[in-house]
């Protein structure tokens, strides 16, 4: 466990498979759903209370990993800005024929604008293609963490986790 995370600073594909917060491919195709990339038992539980449909379960022991009930999750993205580790994303593989949506937490300025084309990055920061900014959410109750929705090619929806503006 933690081979990728502890050595390189980001989660490997194998580690991702073992996480209890990752929805199935089938569920992702049905529409937006939370992807909780939390694999270390650290004492933290705000995600649980942020979920209005009780789809995230941590339990009394706050070091438990968050479990996702993928059938309950409606992909509302309330949990994204709440996670202090910025480890929750929303993926929607049912968006368009060829494109998926990925919602990511973003704490950098300037914020991108709707319609921008940006460079998509994977968990290691590697450039993996272009993405279109579909939407930027930034409300008071998100406490300065914006949520940026990107459209990426379908096979990249579980790979793209960040972006940078084009030079």
């Amino acid at each position: 466990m933690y081979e990728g995370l502890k050595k390189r600073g980001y989660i490997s594909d194998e580690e991702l498979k073992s996480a209890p917060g990752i929805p199935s491919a089938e569920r992702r195709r049905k529409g937006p759903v939370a992807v909780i990339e939390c694999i270390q038992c650290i004492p933290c539980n705000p995600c649980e209370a942020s979920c209005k449909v009780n789809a995230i379960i941590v339990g009394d022991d706050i070091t438990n990993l968050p479990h996702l009930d993928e059938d309950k999750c409606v992909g509302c993205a309330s949990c994204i800005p709440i996670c202090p580790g910025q480890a929750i994303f929303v993926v929607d593989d049912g968006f368009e024929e060829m494109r998926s949506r990925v919602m990511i937490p973003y704490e950098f300025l300037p914020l991108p604008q709707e319609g921008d084309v940006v460079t998509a990055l994977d968990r290691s920061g590697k450039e993996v293609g272009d993405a279109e900014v579909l939407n930027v959410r930034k409300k008071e109750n998100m406490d300065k963490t914006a949520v940026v929705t990107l459209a990426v090619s379908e096979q990249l929806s579980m790979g793209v986790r960040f972006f940078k503006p084009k030079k």
Partner: protein
Amino acid sequence: MQRHEMVCIGAGPAGLSAAIEAAKNGVQVAVYDENDRPGGQLFKQIHKFFGSREHRAMERGFDIGKSLLEEAQSLDVQVILDSVVMGIYENATMNIMVKDHVEEVKAEKVVVATGASENMIPFPGWTLPGVIGAGAAQTMANIHGVRPGKRLLMVGSGNVGVVVSYQMLQAGCEVAVVIDAAPEVGGYGVHASKVARTGVPFYMSHTVKKAHGKDRVEGATIVQVDETWKPVAGTGKSFDVDTICLAVGLNPMSQVLRMANCEMVYVPSLGGNIPAHDLNQETSVPGIYVAGDVSGIEEASSAMIEGNIAGLAIAHSMGYVENDPFHEQRDGFLESMKGLRAGPFGEKRAEGKRMLLEAMKG
């Protein structure tokens, strides 16, 4: 001589929490801090905190600092700044350098919440301008709005190293690499991941060999180390950086406690020599309490709970709180603390704290 029921040394999260809890129960409290503004490290913490939602998780450190100060003010806690406690003598008598003069202060109870100082590691070129502590980088960027450098190398992958790396990226610096002599990332994986996904590489089992530059840092060479921490020949790599940021651990600032003859115990997992203390945060010297990093390096959330416990215990020992509500409230605090010290990251600290408790029992 000035007299106070309770004096708190340090106006960080632990000290303010102790002051608030005691004052809430009727204790008269004065807090002294050597800095020109209160809050300790809280106002540098621009990230959202982990923890339980009952204990301010997902709030940002500077917002927590603001609300602690407001609460202390509303309870008539006196916060006296620019004040260095120079010595603590018998019966909790202290000499305090307040601005330009020395005052003699006597307290019935003292909470020492002096925090910690940063460790540094020496290497050729480490005295060049541009080699800074992670705390300094945070002060520059997050308090004064000054970018510490254009391109920096972070030494240390503990939570301070990864959190500050992220904050430097937010401030517009480029982070060339995060290195650590240890074989694994020391901080929370989620903090590391926020940095990694922006494209910053992590080199584990690497240390700084040398800082380059004539009048200031112009570059750095790092080298791989083996299991015995020895450099591996032929593994040197150079980076063009103008800043080398050190985040290589913290050391409790326990000088006044040693001066007061508090029993100290060496606990590496808590950062070095730590004052033995009981479940009320009271040291081996009756009337002297500790809270926060000085009683073992942890983080702000547990520092605040330790402060709460010390403040409550003082109010109880002075007769402001009855036995039953005291035990009920203290057990609540201890229960929350148990949560923060669980899991792979907390277990070692919990074990260290047990050693300190054992030392108190003799």
